[in-house]
């Protein structure tokens, strides 16, 4: 009964989406406020319906209702309760349901909190949002129904893929989807603006909180996924340039570029056309990411061709939305009035520089990811494009951006003074050189590492320089500077934090990739292993039973200079229902560094293959991402964004008082 109710609710949501797609636009055309208002109520009702459908599927999982095919395929009655919840989205059908749930959530939030947005724009945005929703409801209902019943239900489910039985699954996909789908708001705003034919600084201000929110979630989602892969896969890598990873990186790069160009539009009304294009591209890349992951095209072109229903459906959605929006863009964008002019050396110029390199990096990842597919489809030739290619092409495009980051905020709008900015960055540059010399003396080879650390220090110190300059830290009394720091717009703090996070992450990346120590050895109980200044002794191993697996747990004592500092217990789990095993790596943080242990095969003579790493500064990779997201959150809490468009008289006086940004 409950699955049928869920199915029904989903169909209802589809019907509501159809109404929301069309009625408000008629209202906008005829200037009928009542029809425009349909968008708001429909958006709220749609969210209630999808939430009900989602709750129904969750209920089926929690009660282990194996008459539902989806549950039978992906769950097991012995699975811990938390994984019964998370396995709702640990499969194709359920994850698509989560996708539309989040889409409906964003629509409902706009309906609730978008009061400051003019009703025509709001109605159009919600209508466009609903076009996307309609397409995806149709996709779920026609090709991926999560509520399908089995005629002969099995007694027991087939269990969830063991790799997914982890807390990572609870957090990673929802965060990632909040990011992916969040960019649909920027897309809908862009398309709505093109439809209405009017776009200005206020538009940029209205769209900014939504983009920022999506960007924060995507940042956290990618970082979380990277950490999950790092500890779950057992070989200590944190980024593999896998197509599925690239699928999430591309919208992030485009979204980051979009955030920066929207800034120019908000402050100076320039770059309108480009900003709109970026908004469309960012969400298009999210859709392509969904397509890449969902259609099976990544496995091989042939797998896609043998079972093409889903793939072709998503491909149709892609063509419709990306093609449609780009056509609309080509038609309407030339009509947009251009805004302020600027010299190449200016804040705008710096942001354009950022955009140029970020979009090139994005294009590189895009071509690299899709090239093998395209080549095989066109010529039949099979090639591989993997990590070595991306490392070689991606980093040269990112280093110039990193070098430019400290300059951007120090340049004035319209016409900046590069020499003056450089003078103010002398302190940061000196710190960077000191960092290079110290790391070189301490670590020596490889030469690239000290230079990278220097660059990271430059980025961090540069971000701090910006704050110091704005507060007049070295020019006025400390009390005065503190007062100014409190009065500084939160968005300024946000930018500084986001840029610092970038620097911190770079330090982590260099530490992990350049100074990593690895030992692969076969160990027996009682054996010792020296690793990066620590000694690990293999104390013992025992078999244990988990709820739906058996595991071999080993214990290691970690000591340094003869002093015991703790134990580590890497394990190997075997899941009978899926005939699979996973390694449960053990991690021990030492400051910002980590000791990483994972187990391999057990030989006939009773020795266990152990892979041990000492990863210096590795935690900074994810800590840096957290700081970046925190910067985004600070910026999101900026008063300017919360109240949306300023009422002219009052806020103009405010703007005059606030320091120039």
């Amino acid at each position, binding site marked *: 009964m409950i699955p049928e109710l869920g199915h029904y609710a989903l169909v209802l949501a589809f019907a509501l989406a159809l109404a929301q797609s069309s009625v408000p636009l008629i209202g906008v055309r005829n200037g009928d406020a009542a029809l425009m208002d349909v968008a708001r109520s429909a958006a709220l009702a749609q969210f209630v319906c999808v939430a009900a459908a989602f709750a129904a599927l969750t209920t089926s999982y929690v009660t282990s209702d194996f008459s539902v095919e989806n549950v039978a395929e992906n769950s097991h009655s012995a699975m811990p309760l938390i994984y019964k919840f998370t396995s709702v989205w640990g499969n194709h059908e359920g994850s698509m349901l989560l996708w539309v749930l989040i889409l409906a959530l964003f629509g409902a939030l706009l309906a609730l909190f978008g009061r400051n947005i003019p009703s025509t724009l709001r109605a159009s945005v919600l209508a466009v949002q609903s076009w996307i929703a309609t397409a995806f409801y149709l996709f779920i209902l026609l090709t991926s129904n999560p509520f399908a019943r089995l005629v002969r239900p099995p007694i027991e489910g087939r269990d969830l893929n063991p790799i997914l039985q982890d807390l990572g699954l609870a957090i990673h996909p929802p965060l990632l989807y909040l990011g992916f789908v969040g960019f649909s708001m920027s897309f809908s705003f862009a398309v709505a603006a093109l439809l209405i034919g009017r776009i200005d600084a206020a538009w940029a201000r209205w769209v900014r909180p939504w983009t920022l929110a999506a960007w924060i979630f995507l940042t956290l989602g990618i970082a979380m996924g990277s950490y999950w892969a790092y500890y779950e896969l057992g070989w200590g890598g944190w980024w593999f340039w896998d197509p*599925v990873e690239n699928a999430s990186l591309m919208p992030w790069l485009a979204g980051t570029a979009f955030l920066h160009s929207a800034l120019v539009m908000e402050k100076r009304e320039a770059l309108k056309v480009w900003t709109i294009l970026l908004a469309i591209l960012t969400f298009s890349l999210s859709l392509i990411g969904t397509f890449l992951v969902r259609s099976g095209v990544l496995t091989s072109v042939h797998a896609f061709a043998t079972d093409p229903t889903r793939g072709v459906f998503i491909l149709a959605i892609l063509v419709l939305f990306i093609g449609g929006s780009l056509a609309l863009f080509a038609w309407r964008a030339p009509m947009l009035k251009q805004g302020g002019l600027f010299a190449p050396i200016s804040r705008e110029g710096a942001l354009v520089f950022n955009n140029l390199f970020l979009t090139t990096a994005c294009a590189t990842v895009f071509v690299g990811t899709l090239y093998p597919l395209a080549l095989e489809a066109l010529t039949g030739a099979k090639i591989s494009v993997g990590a070595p290619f991306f490392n070689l092409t991606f980093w040269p495009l990112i280093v110039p951006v990193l070098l430019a980051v400290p300059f951007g905020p120090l340049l004035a709008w319209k016409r900046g003074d590069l020499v003056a900015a450089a003078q103010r960055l002398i302190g940061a540059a000196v710190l960077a050189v000191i960092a290079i010399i110290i790391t070189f003396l301490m670590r020596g080879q490889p030469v690239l590492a000290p230079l990278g650390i220097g660059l990271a220090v430059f980025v961090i110190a540069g971000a701090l320089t910006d704050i110091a300059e704005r507060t007049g830290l070295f020019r006025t009394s400390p009390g005065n500077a503190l007062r100014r720091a409190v009065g500084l717009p939160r968005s300024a703090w946000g930018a500084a934090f986001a840029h610092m996070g970038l620097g911190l992450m770079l330090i982590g990346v260099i530490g992990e990739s350049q100074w990593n120590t690895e030992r692969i050895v076969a160990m027996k109980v009682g054996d010792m292993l020296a690793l990066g200044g620590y000694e690990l002794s293999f104390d013992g191993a025992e078999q244990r039973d988990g709820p739906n697996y058996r595991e071999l747990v080993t214990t290691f004592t970690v000591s340094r200079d003869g002093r015991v500092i703790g134990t580590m217990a890497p394990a190997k789990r075997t899941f009978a229902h899926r005939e699979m095993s996973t390694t449960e790596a053990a991690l021990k943080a030492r400051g910002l560094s980590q000791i990483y242990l994972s187990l391999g095969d057990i030989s006939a003579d009773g020795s266990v293959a152990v892979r041990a790493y000492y990863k210096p500064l590795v935690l900074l990779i994810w800590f840096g991402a957290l700081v970046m997201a925190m910067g985004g959150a600070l910026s999101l809490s900026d008063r300017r964004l919360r109240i949306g468009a300023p009422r002219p008289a009052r806020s103009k006086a405010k703007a005059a008082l606030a320091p120039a940004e």
Partner: protein
Amino acid sequence: MRNASRMRLCWPLVWVAAFIAMAAPALAVQPDEMLRDPRLEQRARAISQELRCMVCQNQSIDDSDAPLAKDLRLLVRERLKAGDSDPQIIDYMVARYGEFVLLKPRLSWQTVVLWLTPAIVLLAGGLGLLIVLRRRRALAATAAPPPLTPDEERKLAELAKAENP
């Protein structure tokens, strides 16, 4: 059964955007495979990272747990012991398994677009930007108001002083 489970691990479990799903959760390089000479072993690892495990999705033979990857790792080490140079080993692998085995494709007419993409996009973007900027400034220059007279400039400076004491 062991084999079957490995195949299942190796073939992609098409799943949500979690990029976890396709990796084999076990050790790749086994202790007994490693060469005695650390310099040779280091070279073997570096070469292994450039070579694809052909039955896996986007994994190098250094990372993969598949039986084929193990065979290839042993093959690389055999060639190293026989005294081959790194390019010779790469050539040998390509001759046996085709270009598909390389994770970093060589420059050829088939991959020229791939390799040139970053440069082309960057140049085209920069050039396009330059043209747009030039044109807009030329346009603005023709429509620009006449420059301030010295008298006006002095007044402006006074006003600015009054605003920012």
